[in-house]
């Protein structure tokens, strides 16, 4: 990055670090979440307000309407029974009883002269087009809003019955205003809430982002602190920490292997180099020279073998061989290997006792299984003293193939047993023997490729290596599952 800044202006193609632009607010997950939440909340508040409105204002209005109609019907009855005089009396009586001063009456003759009622003049909007009105009326007490019903009586008389609804209109306005205010406050709260949630969000992921950022810078020791709340973020922190542990383990493995390679290969390379240089400087005869070269070549072959084994293990661990898995019976394979090694064992005065209970169906890689078993037998043969026996047993046990190879050699101490499958690991007792320290690592890799295990146990005396592989007991259709 520094180079790009100091570069001359002519190098236009130099890529500059992208400018850190302020992110649009909508890109913030916290804001988005808060907005969605505010919208949902607003909609539900609106629904609540609407139902409140409907059940208060609406109900009041309907009640007034019913009261007016009942009143009107009663007055019409008065008119029908007692004529105009009875009606006038009834209106006057009602006006006197009108304690709340909200009832409105007006009776006019055919010439539109007021006969009775508490309205000063005929309301201007009352045109006769409808029979129910909500109008501003002039009363003796001043102008007001009223709901009116217009009745046409016999003889050209016209009666208006109504109720003053000013209070109720005021209530409506109050409710309206209240709702508007509430909406306003709600949006303000929504926006504020969005920012609050965003900052909460940020605070919650701050630990995670700080940790991961530190790790991407190379500090693999960092872990996401747990709050102990047991919430989703704690769970996430746990998962991330597990992942980091795994990565660290892998990194350590790689580091260890590189160290081991450097160390374990340096020795034979040094030996080969020394031999060649020594021969070049001191060999007095062509024969000396030739033998030195031959021995150096052997050393190099040993180095190549270590490389091959390492590559093979890496290849197995990468899992690429899984695509070549095929079903086969392990029993004949073991019999072949047993026969292959039997002669060597006899030659060395070691008895190879075999007990194979077939068939042992497996979905796997035949070559790798051969190599794994061969490695275990090679090991057993290498460490077995004369006049001891090695046992190779194989049987089906709880849906898995259990393959055990036991010798009566020095074994591996309990402390070393866990590490014995690591690359290049060589137990103290094996230091003086030939070998690369990769044999068991390869067996372990083969085992885990087949979702099996390699366990090392004490054979009292000696080592018992138990290779457990999942048996393929189902029908052919099920083989697809393992691919």
């Amino acid at each position, binding site marked *: 990055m520094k180079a790009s800044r100091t570069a001359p202006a002519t190098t236009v193609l130099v890529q500059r670090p992208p400018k850190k632009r302020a992110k649009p607010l909508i890109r913030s997950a916290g804001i988005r979440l808060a907005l969605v939440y505010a919208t949902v909340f607003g909609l539900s508040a609106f629904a609540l307000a609407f139902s409140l409105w409907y059940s208060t204002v609406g109900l009041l209005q309907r009640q007034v309407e019913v009261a007016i109609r009942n009143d009107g019907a009663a007055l019409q009855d008065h008119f029908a029974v007692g004529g105009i005089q009875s009606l006038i009396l009834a209106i006057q009586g009602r006006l006197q009883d009108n304690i709340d001063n909200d009832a409105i009456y007006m009776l006019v003759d055919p010439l539109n002269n007021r006969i009775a009622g508490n309205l000063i003049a005929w309301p201007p909007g009352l045109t006769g087009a409808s029979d129910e009105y909500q109008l501003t009326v002039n009363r003796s007490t001043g102008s007001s809003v009223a709901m009116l019903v217009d009745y046409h009586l016999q003889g050209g008389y016209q009666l208006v019955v109504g109720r003053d609804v000013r209070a109720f209109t005021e209530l409506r306005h109050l409710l309206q205003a209240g709702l508007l205010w509430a909406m306003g406050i709600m949006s303000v709260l929504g926006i504020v809430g969005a920012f609050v949630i965003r900052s909460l969000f940020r605070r919650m992921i701050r630990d995670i982002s700080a940790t991961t950022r530190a790790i991407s810078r190379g500090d693999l020791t960092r872990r996401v602190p747990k709050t102990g709340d047991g919430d989703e973020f704690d769970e996430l922190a746990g998962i991330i920490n597990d992942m980091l542990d795994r990565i660290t383990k892998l990194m350590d493995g790689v580091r260890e292997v590189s160290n081991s390679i450097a160390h374990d290969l340096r020795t034979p390379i040094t030996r080969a180099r020394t031999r060649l240089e020594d021969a070049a400087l001191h060999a007095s005869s062509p024969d000396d020279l030739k033998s030195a070269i*031959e021995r150096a070549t052997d050393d*190099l*072959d040993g180095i*190549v*073998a270590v490389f*091959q084994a390492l*590559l093979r293990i890496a*290849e197995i661990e990468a899992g*690429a*061989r899984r695509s*070549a898995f095929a079903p086969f019976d392990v029993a004949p394979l073991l019999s*072949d290997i047993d*026969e*292959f*090694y039997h*002669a*060597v064992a006899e*030659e060395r005065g070691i008895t190879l006792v075999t007990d194979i209970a077939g068939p042992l169906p497996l979905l796997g890689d035949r*070559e790798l299984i*051969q*190599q794994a078993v*061969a*490695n275990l037998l*090679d090991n057993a*043969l*290498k460490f077995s003293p004369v006049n001891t026996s090695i046992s190779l047993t194989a049987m089906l046990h709880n849906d898995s193939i259990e393959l055990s190879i036991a010798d009566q050699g020095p074994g591996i101490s309990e402390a070393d047993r866990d590490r014995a499958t690591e690359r290049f690991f060589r137990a103290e007792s094996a230091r003086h023997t*030939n*070998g690369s320290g990769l*044999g068991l690592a390869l067996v372990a890799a083969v085992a885990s490729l087949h979702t099996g295990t390699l366990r090392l146990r004490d054979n009292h005396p000696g080592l018992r290596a138990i290779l457990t592989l999942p048996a393929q007991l189902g029908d052919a259709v099920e083989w697809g599952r393992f691919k």
Partner: protein
Amino acid sequence: MRILVVEDDKDVAGFVVKGLREAGHTVEHADNGRDGLFLAASENFDAIILDRMLPGGIDGLRLLETLRAQDNVTPVVFLSALSQVDDRVKGLKAGGDDYLTKPFAFAELLARVEALTRRGKTDGPTTRLAVGDLEIDLLSRGVRRAGQKIDLQPREFRLLEYLMRHAGQVVTRTMLLEGVWDYHFDPQTNVIDVHVSRLRQKIDKPFDLPLLHTVRNAGYMLRAEDV
């Protein structure tokens, strides 16, 4: 024999060409895929030693596939630094007869090339093989030497059969491992030597003239005359 070496590394190519010539073969060399394909397609060879990764736009696999598509059945030994199992499988699938990974011992390469060319000639319906006074019947699985019946285990018989099919040629331990046991790993113990020495006990020990010889730094050879 006439052998074509297609290899771009000067040192490796020089070494292989020199070694093959010393072993009495006529050798042509191409240092890129295009020339290699041209030579292989236009001239007759008894065997081709082919690198996988080659300059010139045509790699070893393409070269061989093109060659096989033209019904050219010249035996081909791959000589490649690509050592994974899949690489070997790919090479053999493309029509290769053998696959040797670098780094290699020249003795191994020579033995494999010579074995391949011989195989091409004797791949007929043979039922009897004989070396000197040793003869085997592939149908009845009987072994006789100087008229005397020799009892062999099935695997010993296959070992002997392999050696007899390559009589007069050096057979390396790896070739035996692959050819007789079909194993593609390198045992840490001297298993092959033990098996060969057991076979030797049976076919050579009771007789004056040894037939099964050990070739130093290379492997074994079955032949009637002294090496």
